[in-house]
């Protein structure tokens, strides 16, 4: 196995075994700075090695990428990849052509982006995870097959990589070692973005080769387009959930709230990540309480995809992303609302507000808004009476990348927290320079095989470090409750898994949750706390 510091992009074409192994990860701060505080990586099962591509770093993220049984299958795999690679520079890929071409052509290879990457940092500076590593592999393959200079001059222009099943499969896996958080792009002196290259590789695999992680595709966007939600919740189940939520609200708070569903002519269509109904039902409940208190004219939708804001397509497949955006807009148009408000889900913010902004057009296009300015406005108007002492415990804020770095929504959530959480403290860095939770771009829901190990120990490591640093004064004291406010379902999923993996809740009383949950917890007139911190 190559020394991590000697690995170079052309090594992806090496026929032999696993390219690198993670052994020296970034240190964690106290109380995780002692031996034995962190579970080790699980060993790879021999059966996985036979079936999947484990020869990159030993992890399997793409469970549908399976070893060929015949030479013909192997050749067809390579042929399809090359066909897709050629297409990303054609009009089939118009929506990415300019940014892709710029990053493809102009990278100065100065490595300024490396230290901005939480995965590269967390891995102990393993060469494989430098943001430009996978980009350079893609350049080499493209030059070798599709440029005159590559064909004539070969290695002189960098077209020096062997292309076989192993090369392509490793590259497919490597595309899922980037959270697409775009922090690296903030540092590039040429304004280039390596996450574009990672996403383009994912697109080639999905849109040309029909290969994508099951949780993202078959059990993600495909399921959403068929049933209405990537959780598999159909309309009837959704309506049941709402009924349950109303009962739960009454039980928790004594408030009788009739949650509006399919209310024609409402001002606002609120769309949640449907995962909230399954994993954190207190979150949509808190929204209902706050929206009712604020006197908003709002509704949920029960039409197909109208009740699930997720759009996994934005991580790996433009065509799936487009279909979902259009369905969500259709749901809003049918109800005649004047705006779509996205709840606590970062990637849904990006999908509906930014991706959709270049797909839907015309007078019928329904504007999309984040819940954050809406709630901050209601707070400013005095819609809620808060008793901040109800949140008298250390609170820190995790910034979802898509909300801050991708949309520039930075202040409203802070303004609210400063009012409702007297012990609020920032992480370092924060705001638009935040670190990803490690669950971005699908990682939070990719639980096949040993991929959760990569997420919990590597991609989420920097976030865990930030959380521990933010609570440095109390982190080791289990008698003091600590709360990580993460206003995003995927981020919450990733943070939940970190806390389970490191037993941070059971050992050190560190909890996580949304922003609206914390707001309702601070409502002065509720008979008892809204949040319960069971271990």
């Amino acid at each position, binding site marked *: 196995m190559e020394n991590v510091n*000697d690995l170079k*992009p052309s090594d992806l074409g090496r026929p032999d075994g696993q390219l690198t192994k993670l052994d020296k990860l970034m240190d964690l701060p106290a109380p995780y700075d002692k031996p034995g505080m962190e579970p080790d990586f699980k060993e790879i099962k021999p059966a996985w090695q036979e079936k999947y591509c484990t020869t990159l770093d030993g992890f399997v993220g793409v469970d*549908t990428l399976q070893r060929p049984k015949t030479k013909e299958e192997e050749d067809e795999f390579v042929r399809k990849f090359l066909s*897709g690679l050629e*297409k990303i520079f*054609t*009009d*089939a890929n*118009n*929506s*990415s*052509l*300019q*940014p892709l*071409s710029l990053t493809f052509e*102009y990278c100065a*290879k*100065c*490595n*300024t982006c490396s230290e*901005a990457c939480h995965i590269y940092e967390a891995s102990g500076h393993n*060469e494989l995870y430098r943001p430009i590593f996978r980009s350079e592999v893609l350049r080499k393959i493209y030059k070798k097959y599709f440029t005159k200079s590559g064909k004539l001059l070969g*290695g*002189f*222009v960098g077209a020096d990589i062997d292309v076989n099943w192993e090369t392509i499969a490793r590259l497919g896996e490597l595309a899922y070692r980037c959270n697409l958080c775009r922090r690296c*792009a903030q*540092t*590039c*002196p*040429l*304004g280039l*973005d390596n996450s574009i290259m990672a996403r383009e590789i994912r697109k080639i695999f999905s849109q040309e*080769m*029909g290969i994508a992680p*099951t949780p993202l*595709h*078959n*059990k993600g966007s*495909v399921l959403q*387009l068929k049933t209405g939600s990537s959780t598999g919740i159909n309309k009837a189940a959704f309506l049941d959930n709402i009924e349950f939520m109303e009962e739960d609200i009454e039980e928790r708070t004594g408030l009788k709230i009739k949650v509006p569903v399919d209310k024609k002519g409402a001002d606002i269509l609120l769309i949640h990540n449907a995962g909230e109904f399954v994993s954190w039902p207190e979150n949509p409940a808190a929204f209902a309480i706050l929206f009712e208190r604020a006197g908003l004219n709002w509704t949920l939708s029960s039409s197909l995809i109208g009740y699930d804001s997720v759009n996994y397509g934005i991580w790996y497949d433009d*065509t*799936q992303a487009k279909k979902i955006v259009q369905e969500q807009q259709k749901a809003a148009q049918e109800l005649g609302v004047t*705006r779509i408000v996205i709840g606590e889900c970062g990637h849904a913010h990006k999908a509906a*507000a930014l991706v959709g902004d*270049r797909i839907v*057009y*015309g007078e019928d*296009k329904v*504007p999309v*808004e984040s819940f954050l*300015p*809406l709630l901050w406005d209601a707070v400013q108007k005095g819609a809620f009476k808060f008793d901040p002492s109800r949140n008298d415990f250390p609170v820190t804020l995790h910034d979802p990348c898509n909300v801050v770095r*991708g*949309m*520039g*929504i*930075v*202040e*409203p959530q802070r303004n609210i927290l400063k009012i409702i959480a007297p012990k609020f403290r920032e992480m370092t860095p924060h705001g638009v320079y935040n670190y990803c939770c490690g669950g971005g771009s699908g990682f939070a829901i990719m639980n*096949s095989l040993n991929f959760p190990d990569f997420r919990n120990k590597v991609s989420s490591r920097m976030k865990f470090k930030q959380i521990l640093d933010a609570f440095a004064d109390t982190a080791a004291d289990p008698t003091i409750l600590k709360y990580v406010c993460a206003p995003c379902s995927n981020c919450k999923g990733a943070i939940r898994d970190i806390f389970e993996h490191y037993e941070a809740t059971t050992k050190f009383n560190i909890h996580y949750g949304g922003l609206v949950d914390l707001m309702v917890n601070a409502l002065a007139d509720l008979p008892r706390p809204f949040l319960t911190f069971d271990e």
Partner: protein
Amino acid sequence: MFLTLYSLLAIILFLAFSAYKAAEYAKMPMHGRLDLYPIPKEGGRLEYGGSYYEELEWWRKPRHVSHGAEIIDMLKEMLFIKKLFDNQRPLWWLSYAFHLGIYCLMGWTVLLTVLAVAGLNGVAVMGAGAGIILVLKILLGIAGVAGFLLALIGSATLLIRRMADGSLRRYTTPQEYFNLLLIFVVLCTGIYAWSLAPSFDRPLRVMEQALSLQPLVLSGAGVLHVVLLGIMFFYIPLSKMSHYVGKYFSFHKVLWDNSPNTPGSAIGKEVEKAAGYRPHTSWSAPHIKGNGATPGKTN
């Protein structure tokens, strides 16, 4: 006479190829939004990276776009390579020396042109000169000497750093070494040719000869320098060294383009036009034309 035409052609082709490249990027189809904050034109919100999305019902409010803040940020990046300064200081010293040297040489070329045109129109520009000519000659001397030295030191140290630092070396292709080496050799031959007749009037006279379409009177080293300089001018726009073109698009048309598609807006019309486009190439995965699952095996 060949060298005169060759050097003028090199400059014309440099400009033409660069313009062509810019036009190629400019006519690329509208792409999906890739806003990356902080975005300078958000003006007052730039400091913390905020945007109009922080406003309630943003689409009903007039947008405040600060072109001044955008220009200031752009100048910081163009003149000082600020992102490299902020994020990788050791490399910045080398890269900035190199780029500052090039800027000085661009200034030197402009001053040579101005003085040569003046000289061709009867103004006494040779020798020390007086008044405005004296000022221009002093600037010419500073720009020329500083330009050659800084660019030479920058290109040499960037080349050495790239060869010596394993983390850069493993990503550098032979062509990328060649790019730096070409510039270094052009600078060396220029300095050597100039050192044979170390006068500020010497390059001015050559510029006069070129602009008046007279044969260039050069030493052997001077001829070599002009030939290599011409090759460099032909080559730069065709290589990734044309990042002076790309940088504009990557910032202004990708990362900082956060104009929303509101009804009746120019963006809205572009989106409509793009939606009506039927591509000549299409993707092949089975799910592209429907909602069905892929044939990929699942567990």
